[in-house]
């Protein structure tokens, strides 16, 4: 059974900006669905429509079996939401916030304390529960936000970039919690701009760019679509990159180099071609300083689908003097 069904969903803002442009997707009950894309791709706008905070301008969506446009109250009863900014009242303590959230979700008074204690313990905030939230670290605020989203045992949990800005330890803690929720049968819709996070957590992925869903499937299937491994080479100082590109051109397809100062080539026949490539460069007088054979990543998938890298995509690619670092 599908926990989330989205059909031709659109959201256009004033001025004609179409943040979400005809998205179709389906998330099965009990799976973690990763919604991957760079800043401004339309992830948060999509989530805000699915959680009933923003009206779609076209298309339809059903969450937990209910239409977000015509049955929003039913949807709200069945979802938990942790938005991008953990919006917490800094003057209240963690326990007070949990209790307020429980009351707003109609949990009976006799159950509030027990449920609150259970969740506070689960997210590791027992010792900080009586402290005001204004004294919490970013990771603690995220964990409290997650606990509040879980107070009413939602069928579907929306996590909008839950680890953005967190330190590695806090990030791992949240990942563990997401895995535990999946094991318990909760459907999780997770937006992220981190490739590793999507790779680690998502059963299936949707990749969004410029408001459109450009790819979907399991991480393994998406990477398999891209196919071949690629060889990254760093030449010794002073090498003529343009000439080196000519040398290796016959071994595979051109790929944009991620930093513009090395050669990168998708090999036609995998690792078996490393030695021939090195021999060809050696014969042409190029010294190789470093080399690495890389398996396809989600960044490769993103690159394949959009022509751009996801990570570091906000920064313009530097171009070396000899032209763009693209093998051809």
């Amino acid at each position, binding site marked *: 059974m599908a926990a989330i069904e989205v059909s031709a969903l659109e959201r256009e803002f004033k001025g004609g900006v179409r943040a979400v442009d005809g998205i179709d997707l389906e998330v099965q009950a009990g799976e973690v669905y990763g919604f991957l894309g760079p800043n401004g791709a339309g992830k948060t706008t999509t989530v805000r429509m699915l959680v009933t905070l923003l009206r779609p301008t076209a298309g339809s969506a059903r969450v937990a079996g209910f239409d977000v446009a015509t049955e929003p109250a039913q949807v709200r009863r069945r979802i938990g939401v942790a938005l991008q900014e953990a919006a917490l009242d800094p003057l209240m303590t963690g326990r007070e916030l949990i209790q307020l959230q429980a009351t707003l979700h*109609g949990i009976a008074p006799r159950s509030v304390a027990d449920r609150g204690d259970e969740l506070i313990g689960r997210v590791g905030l027992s010792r900080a529960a009586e402290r005001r939230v204004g004294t919490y670290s970013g990771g603690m605020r995220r964990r409290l936000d997650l606990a509040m989203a879980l107070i009413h045992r939602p069928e579907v949990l929306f996590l909008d970039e839950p680890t953005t800005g967190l330190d590695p330890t806090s990030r791992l803690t949240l990942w563990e919690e997401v895995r535990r929720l999946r094991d318990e049968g909760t459907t999780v819709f997770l937006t992220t701009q981190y490739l590793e996070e999507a790779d680690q957590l998502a059963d299936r992925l949707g990749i969004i760019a410029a408001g459109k869903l450009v790819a979907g499937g399991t991480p393994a299937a998406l990477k398999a679509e891209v196919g071949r491994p690629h060889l990254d080479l760093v030449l010794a100082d002073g090498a003529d990159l343009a000439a080196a590109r000519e040398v290796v051109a016959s071994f595979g397809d051109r790929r944009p180099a991620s930093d513009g100062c090395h050669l990168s080539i998708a090999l036609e026949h995998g690792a078996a071609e490393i030695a021939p490539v090195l021999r060809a460069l050696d014969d042409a007088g190029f010294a190789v300083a470093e080399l690495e054979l890389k398996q396809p990543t989600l960044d490769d998938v993103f690159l394949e689908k959009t022509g751009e890298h996801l990570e570091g995509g906000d920064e313009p690619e530097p171009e070396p003097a000899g032209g763009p670092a693209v093998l051809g």
Partner: protein
Amino acid sequence: MTHELRMVGALMRRGLNEILRVPGGAVPGVLAPTIFMLGLSAVFGRAAQLPGFDATDFRTFIVPVGMLQGAGFTGAATGVNLARDIEQGWFDRMLLAPAPRPVLLAGVVGSACLRSLLPATFLLAVAFALGVDWPGLLELALAAVLVMGLAAAMACWGVVIALRFRTQQAAPLMQMGSFVAVLFTTAYAPRELLSDWLRAIADVNPVTHVLEGVRQGFVGDVTWADTWPALVSVTGLVVVLGALAVRGMRRQGY
């Protein structure tokens, strides 16, 4: 219904929390009506000797105005706090709760009603210490009801503005609502002494009736003739501005 009442209570507690945990933040709103009363009395004190004032002194005449100003400040503060909640994302959390929108509004406005008693109490304490006539307990209770009612109406106004502009920068507009509403009444002089144009506006301004309802007991006796227009006016203000606020709430998300 029990669930809804508990939700309203929980949101009211949150609203009151700020006064308890950051009392300094409430000081300007609590002090302002009293300072206003003291300042105006010092400048215009002798005006009470003019025919028509019917008050033993100007302070007695002006105290009810200060009480309504306190209600106005509290209402505006409610709007500013909501705008802050919108900016910081807390309001989204409220909207994501499966609570009916009027319940969310009732929690926010209910908190304003209770908070409005703080500046009024401080003002009255100072006023009585300075010799303002004691109006009687029932009269004070009626005044408190009207003050809370006006605070609710002004809180609804603040909510309407906050939902429309979604920024704390709209605070002057929230404050202007109560300022204008109280200014164009019989706040500073009896009806007979107002110029024609101001008298015409004051006659149709519902806040005039609320003010006269609070003022009775301080100046003269409480009469049903002054009480029912005050109650009808404040109820009307709450209903109309409350309806606008609920409409604004329902336009957020779904």
